[in-house]
């Protein structure tokens, strides 16, 4: 053996690396330009808004202060602004626009053609003077503002829990004045025409005939073009598979394997530490489903939780804040643990005291989780200090946690990457930067890097630019980089199991990078059709995100090939395949990728559908089926893979894994098909036929008929929680209680299998 560590050559063609880099660079160059456009073309926040006599109605500082009132009271987890947020309360942009428009029309004499025309003119004419920073409201608009403020005062200071908020949620008159200023500014941006254009800053969203808001030409044309992109892309994908049959998974069919039984595989101290990560994961998962059940109950029966006035302790917005934060936290915990578990198998050894770092990371994670959830509780209950945005409730949907916790979480994720690097350093120095160990490291590094981008979303900045950066986390981070990291982890698991050759796995990873980056990076903009970004965000977002369905289809095909590999190995192996249920969970990832992300996602992806649909149950339908169906099931698959080695063979329960698999999948399917999908279709119908404002009112949501649909979800939720999460809790507890005792710091070349040479004539 040579004394110097020569790097292993790249084991696939250089072309793959070049293609991956080029496509990614292209995506981020376009996204960078769109960031510039989001900042320069956002609706202006006027220095002052005045009535025709020059009296100041509110100032730009009031708008920003109102946005902060909105965020720190958790209202983005109750209703929405520009269509973004939660779905129980109204969309405050659409509601304010409707109330103001009705008041203005009344001031012109009511429902006559002439009054209607003057109302449209009041709202469509852009009276903002950039030179002086002054926006002039007409007399009608000024009077309407006062009326909206009276309405908001009554609504938010409601002394009971009638609306699902805590009693007397906002009573400070100054807060209410600023909150109304923020809503009124958003309604102004939604109706006033962009300079030089014949549509508003929000591409005419929301649909509101009273102010003449209807779909723009861009909206329709790019909807059609994105359909074409989808059809063309799928055609190209299948053509490519037919032409180059080396694409996709191919098994190592010539080999006969003996999988090392769990218990025979010695674990490193850091691998053993992950048992506690998985216990933490399932604890967070259980809490997430419980608060999810509570927030669903608000939709079925708003003011009465089986005889308890739940909103006094757990108002809807707090339940939903915890629900979406925990969705990220429990899934991320599983990915962190799986990364730590795989690192020594990839590296071949584990440095001393690596487990101390792993336990330290878990401790930090617990501090962030407890700290941020408590901060959100305190924030939404109104225990606000001047440091609310730092330690309390920052309030952006999915970035609800205080800034301090957000920074701590980013640092924790960077620390996790450092732990992985420390564990794999010896192996990394021997590998080409384009080979699997480095890709594993780079994909891990992207996780803290893109989560940290969320720090650019600031409660005191323009909502449009803030929302742009928020979706770098909600979309790019969750949908692209977490997915990439898990693809690499799953590929590595199959390589470690000896089922797939490294070269094949690497090819698939590069193909995934190219496909994700081609659609997913610019596709991030499909969240920003109507947030105040210019029309190009809608055009490019629609076109490129349609191409996102292509890798989703590819992943489904991939999942089937995985199964084929599993079948071949099951037939050939001399020992039972130990990961039946982990592989079944991966199979369900394929199913939900296609249904939840592909079908339900594309259902709401066209700008013309999103125009009427945004913020309705169809978004929740996609959210549940994609987030739990893909990331959740992946997290469970990874947990089961690791737990299989953490739990001694005689303690393992295939039955618990099986019950969990069936219950999570059927429970999720029931949630979607019993309630979210049909309700979403009814809501879309209501939105198109009667109005978007109407479709988002509590009156519509809690109507008799819809309440029955909401109640129909109960069996699915119950099966999901009791049959799905509790058996997982049992398995994770087994992992901690009976962790295997065999410890090593050196891993063999093939840690999870041995190859058997079959004598001629003997069946393999």
């Amino acid at each position: 053996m040579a004394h110097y560590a020569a790097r292993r050559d790249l084991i696939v063609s250089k072309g793959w690396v070049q293609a991956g880099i080029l496509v990614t660079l292209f995506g981020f160059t376009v996204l960078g330009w769109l960031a510039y456009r989001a900042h320069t073309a956002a609706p202006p926040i006027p220095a002052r808004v005045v009535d025709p006599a020059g009296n100041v109605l509110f100032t730009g500082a009031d708008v920003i202060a109102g946005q902060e009132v909105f965020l720190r009271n958790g209202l983005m987890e109750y209703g929405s602004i520009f269509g973004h947020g939660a779905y129980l309360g109204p969309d405050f942009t659409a509601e304010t626009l409707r109330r103001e428009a009705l008041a203005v029309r009344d001031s012109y004499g009511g429902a006559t053609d002439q009054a209607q025309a003057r109302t449209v003119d009041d709202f469509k004419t852009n009276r903002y003077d950039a030179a002086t920073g002054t926006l002039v409201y007409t007399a009608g608009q000024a009077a309407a503002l006062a009326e909206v403020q009276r309405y908001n005062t009554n609504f938010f200071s409601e002394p009971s829990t009638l609306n699902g908020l805590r009693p007397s949620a906002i009573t400070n008159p100054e807060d209410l004045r600023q909150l109304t200023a923020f809503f009124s500014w958003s309604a102004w941006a939604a109706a006033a025409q962009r300079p030089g254009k014949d549509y508003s800053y929000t591409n005419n969203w929301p649909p509101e005939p009273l102010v003449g808001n209807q779909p723009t030409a861009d909206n329709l044309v790019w909807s059609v073009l994105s359909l074409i992109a989808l059809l063309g892309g799928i055609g190209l994908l299948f053509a490519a598979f037919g032409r180059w049959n080396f694409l996709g998974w191919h098994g190592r069919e010539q080999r006969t394997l003996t999988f090392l039984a769990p218990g025979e595989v010695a674990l490193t101290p850091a691998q053993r530490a992950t048992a506690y990560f998985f216990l933490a994961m399932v604890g967070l998962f259980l809490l997430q489903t419980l608060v999810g059940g509570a927030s669903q109950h608000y939709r079925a029966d708003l003011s009465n939780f089986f005889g308890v006035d739940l909103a006094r302790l757990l108002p809807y917005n707090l339940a939903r804040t915890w629900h979406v934060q925990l969705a990220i936290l429990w899934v991320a915990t599983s990915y962190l643990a799986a990364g730590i578990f795989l690192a020594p198998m990839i590296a071949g050894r584990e440095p001393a005291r690596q487990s101390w770092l792993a336990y330290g990371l878990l401790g930090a994670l617990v501090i962030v989780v407890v700290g941020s959830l408590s901060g959100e509780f305190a924030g939404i209950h109104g225990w606000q200090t001047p440091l609310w945005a730092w330690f309390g409730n920052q309030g952006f949907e999915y970035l609800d946690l205080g800034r301090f916790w957000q920074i701590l979480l980013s640092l924790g994720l960077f620390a996790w990457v450092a732990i992985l690097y420390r564990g794999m350093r010896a192996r990394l120095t021997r590998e080409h930067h384009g080979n699997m160990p480095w890709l594993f490291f780079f994909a891990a590094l992207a996780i803290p890097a893109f989560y940290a981008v969320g720090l650019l979303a600031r409660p005191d900045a323009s909502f449009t630019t803030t929302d742009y950066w928020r979706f770098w986390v909600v979309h790019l981070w969750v949908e692209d980089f977490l997915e990439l990291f898990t693809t690499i982890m799953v590929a590595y698991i199959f390589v470690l199991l000896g089922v797939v050759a490294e070269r094949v796995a690497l090819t698939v990873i590069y193909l995934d990078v190219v496909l994700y980056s081609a659609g997913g990076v610019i596709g991030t903009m499909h969240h920003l059709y109507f947030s105040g970004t210019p029309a190009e965000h809608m055009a490019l977002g629609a076109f490129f995100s349609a191409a996102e369905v292509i890798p989703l289809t590819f992943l489904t095909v991939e999942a089937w090939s995985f199964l084929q590999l599993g079948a071949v190995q099951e037939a050939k192996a001399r020992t039972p395949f130990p990961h039946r249920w982990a592989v079944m969970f991966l199979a369900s990832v394929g199913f939900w990728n296609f249904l939840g992300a592909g079908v339900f996602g594309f259902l709401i992806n066209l700008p013309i559908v999103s125009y009427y649909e945004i913020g309705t149950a169809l978004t929740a339908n996609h959210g549940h089926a994609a987030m739990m169906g893909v990331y959740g099931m992946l997290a469970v698959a990874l947990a089961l893979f690791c737990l299989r080695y953490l739990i001694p063979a005689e303690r393992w329960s295939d039955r618990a894994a099986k019950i969990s698999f069936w219950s999570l999948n059927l429970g999720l399917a029931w949630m979607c098909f019993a309630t979210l999908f049909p309700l979403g279709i009814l809501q879309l119908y209501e939105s198109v036929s009667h109005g978007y404002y109407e479709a988002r009112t509590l009156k519509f949501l809690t109507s008799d008929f819809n309440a029955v649909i909401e109640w129909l979800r109960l069996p699915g939720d119950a099966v999901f929680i009791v049959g799905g999460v509790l058996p997982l809790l049992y398995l994770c507890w087994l992992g901690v209680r009976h962790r295997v005792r065999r410890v090593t710091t050196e891993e063999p070349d093939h840690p999870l299998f041995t190859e058997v040479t079959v004598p001629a004539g003997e069946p393999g």
Partner: protein
Amino acid sequence: MSLLGPVAPATLLAAGYALLLLAGAVGLGLWSRAAHARHRAAAPREAEREAPPLAPWPHAEIAHFHHGLALMLVLLAGCIAVVGLARHHAGADWLVLGPVLLLAAGAAYWLLPAFLAVHRLLP
């Protein structure tokens, strides 16, 4: 109330959606049967002599899951029809939702034996 009085709009919605779910369930059942048969044909012959025919894992498990999912959709369709009838039960509503219930029962009768047969064979 006359037998052919007006049908409640909610009844029509419930019936339409329940039929859609039943169609999905039957489609899923047919598809998984075809896939199962294909893989069973590819399974080693000696295995067939020892045990009743079963496609190799995980195809049998997947087919089993698809049957289970189809049965869940049938159950949901049945629930929707029952809830619909509980809310509106004039003669005309029975005329619309009664056949839906019969169809759901038929679909369950068709899917259940295959589901149970595979259930017994799986380890």
